[in-house]
Every structure is written in structure tokens, then in C-alpha cells.
């Protein structure tokens, strides 16, 4: 089975995955209403039922679901053009296109190689050991063809610890979940707060990471969340006596 035929049964859509994809791209279904996590769970259920992992299908699924997640997360976050001029609309799509084209290229090359190998079916080479007379090497015939320096150099290379990767050219990991957790806990020590309050003046990335941190707080049972309507402000309240929160935060 291919990813395309993965049967989905979601609230907003029921049918094969490729149809959903088409409808999303044709804007006939709002991506914001599609629960991507449920699609992933459907796929995992399907894998479990099948009991084996077809890597090619899994790759295709990962590429598609990653693309959908990326589009959806951009739809959900407020834009900040001034701050991130490098995220032009369409740029992510261009990048995705380039990657899909590259993957496609090697998938076709792979088909060519597989066909080539199949075409050589029946052409066998001999793999018998040499006759005993040819297997004996006369030590006296063996001259020095290698320099011992090569060995010292190879070992020296192995002693070298590789340089640390420079992440200087990446702008994304400027803010960590841990930082935003600390920030949220500090706010909660003073009592209830709201998401808008927690991300006041923050850029897009910080907003996203703060949301992660908030979900983490909720999971840990440190806070309760209330949202009256979609896109409305989220009210955040400490879920436990303040002493406990302080204890966790310290």
C-alpha cells in the first residue's frame, strides 16, 4: 500500500490521504481544521497492523506530513514581516519543491539502477579461491611498498576530536523551551496570567516556543489552561498550591 491510499476517518474528512492532500492544496478544506496528529496516529495504527515498515512509503509519508505541519504552523502563528524578512511567502514552498524534485531525481535514478541490476540477471562471475600454488606468497618477494608514516598519521587523525559545529548561521535556536518554562513559572508565581501576557512583544519563534513550554506545564500538572474560543486569549492559572510550583521551579 502507498501513503496515498491510507484511509482516514477524521471529523472534517473521511477518505484516502491523497484526496485530503488534494483538497487542502485546492483550498477546499481548511488545513487549520485538519488534526494532523490524528493522521499520524492513523498511519502508526496502519503500520502496527501491518507489522512491518516499508521505508519508501514511510519516507513519502514523512515528507508529506512534515510539509503539512510546516504549512499549518505558519497559518497558526501571527506574522512578523519586519522581524523575519527572510521568510517570504512562498519561500517555504520553493524549498519544499526543491527537496521534492531532488528526492524525485534519485528515486528515478534508483529505478534505473534496479532495472540495470535485473538486466544483468544470469551474468555470473566466478568466485572460486585461487589454486593453492598461487595462494602462497613468498615473504622474500615482498618489498617495502608502504611507509610507516601512513600508520602514525592515520592514528593521529583518530586522536583528533572533530571541531565543534558552528551553528552561527542558524537563527532559529535563539530561544529554548527551558527559558520559556522559567519565564512562565515566574509569571505563575504571581498568580494567574494569560498567553498574550506571556508573549507580549515576543517574536514569532518565541511565541511558538512559549506555546510548547505552556503545553509542557500543563502536562506536568503545574498549570490549567482555558480558551473560550478559537484564536481567543488563553487563560493560564497555577494548578497547585504556589509552594509546589516554587519547589518545581527552583
Amino acid at each position, binding site marked *: 500500500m502507498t501513503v496515498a491510499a491510507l484511509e482516514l476517518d477524521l471529523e472534517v474528512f473521511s477518505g484516502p490521504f491523497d484526496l485530503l492532500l488534494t483538497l487542502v492544496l485546492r483550498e477546499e478544506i481548511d488545513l487549520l481544521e485538519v488534526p494532523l496528529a490524528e493522521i499520524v496516529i492513523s498511519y502508526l495504527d496502519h503500520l502496527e497492523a501491518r507489522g512491518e515498515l516499508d521505508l519508501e512509503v514511510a519516507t513519502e509519508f514523512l515528507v508529506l506530513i512534515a510539509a503539512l505541519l510546516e504549512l499549518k504552523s505558519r497559518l497558526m502563528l*501571527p506574522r512578523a514581516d519586519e522581524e523575519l524578512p527572510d521568510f517570504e511567502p*512562498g519561500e517555504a514552498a520553493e524549498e519544499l*519543491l526543491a527537496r521534492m524534485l531532488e528526492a524525485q*531525481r534519485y528515486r528515478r*535514478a534508483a529505478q534505473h539502477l534496479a532495472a540495470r541490476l535485473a538486466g544483468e540477471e544470469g551474468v555470473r*562471475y566466478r568466485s572460486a579461491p585461487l589454486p593453492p600454488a598461487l595462494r602462497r606468497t613468498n615473504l622474500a618477494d615482498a618489498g617495502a611498498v608502504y611507509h610507516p608514516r601512513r600508520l602514525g598519521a592515520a592514528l593521529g587523525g583518530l586522536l583528533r576530536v*572533530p571541531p565543534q559545529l558552528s551553528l552561527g548561521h542558524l537563527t532559529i535556536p535563539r530561544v529554548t523551551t527551558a527559558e520559556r518554562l522559567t519565564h512562565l513559572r515566574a509569571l505563575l508565581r504571581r498568580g494567574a496570567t494569560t498567553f498574550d501576557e506571556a508573549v507580549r512583544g515576543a517574536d514569532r519563534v518565541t511565541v511558538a516556543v512559549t506555546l510548547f513550554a505552556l503545553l509542557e506545564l500543563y502536562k506536568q500538572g503545574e498549570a490549567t489552561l482555558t480558551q473560550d474560543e478559537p484564536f481567543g486569549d488563553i487563560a493560564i492559572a497555577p494548578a497547585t498550591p504556589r509552594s509546589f510550583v516554587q519547589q518545581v521551579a527552583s
Partner: protein
Amino acid sequence: MSELRRIVEALLFLSPDAVSVADLAEATGCDTDEVATALAELDRQYAPGERGLQLKRVAGGIALATDPVAEEAARRLLAKPRTPPLTPAQAETLAIVAYLQPVSRPEITRIRGVAAESASATLEERGFIEEAGRSQFGAVLYRTTDLFLRLFGLESLKGLPEVAEWDPSPEEEAELRDRLLRAGEQRAGDAAGV
């Protein structure tokens, strides 16, 4: 029949790998023109349909191989297939190594979108790819082997079609672009309204 032709035939029979004309010349003490003449004589003897064996130009040299006419019987006698077919993951990994060599495993992973550990390990075990040094970050680089050329019937890597041949057609690319860009426009439009 010339003695040189007989000797060359014997050397091709014994050698586990394809043998270059230069190596045949050195071993026989003849010059490369003489070896080429002997090979031409052998070519006539091994004309298609004549023998159970054929003379193949592969992996930068000459090798004796069986004619596919014997495959069924060979499988019964040796009780093993020639070489199992490639899984799609292995074929893709091999294609990337063949065209981009030397190439690191992280780069293969980036192109394929999934980890390539198991496919590259299998390809290495089967002797299709081998290590070719390390990248500046210490990641192992891979290249294809002579065995790869031999089993795929290639004389050299030049025998592979140009990589551009596998690019999607302009129409396919335009269609894919259109679909993606429309999603992008929607995103811009919707997001502006948030």
C-alpha cells in the same frame, strides 16, 4: 591459436576481479597492442550464442562471466541467487552514492528524508559501496566499488546516464510548483487576516 590468447583466457578465468589490459600486458610480458589483438581473437571465440561464457568489459577491465542461458541451472547447482534484488531504500541510497560520491551518510539522509543507516550498512556488506575517507566533521564518506560496476554491467561510472536525465520534466515541475505555491498564497492571505 596464439599462445598469448590462451594465457589471457586462463588469467581471466583465475582472476577474482576484472583485469585491465595494462595488467594483462605486464603479467604476460607483452605490449598492450598484442594483448588487444589476443582479446579480439577471444571476442570472436566468445561470440554471443557460441559458448556458455562471455567476455565482459566491466569495472575498467575484462572479465569472464556466464551467459544467462545457464542461470536456471546455476541457481539449482549453487543453491543461491546471483545477487538479491535491491529494496527501494537500498536502490535510492546506492543511486545517491553513485552520482554524488564521495558522499556522507548525513547527506544521503538529507536527500532521502529518512535515516540511511540500515540501507548503507547492507550495501557496504554486499560490497556495492565502501568508505572513502571522512568529511571535515568526521562523518564517513561513501563511494561505489568495482564490484558495483561489475554486477551492474558498467565499464565505468561514465556508463551511468547523466543525472539531469532523471530530473522531472518542466511540465511536472511546473505542476508541482503550482500546487505548492497556491498553498503558499493561501497561507499569506489567511495569515494576513489573523
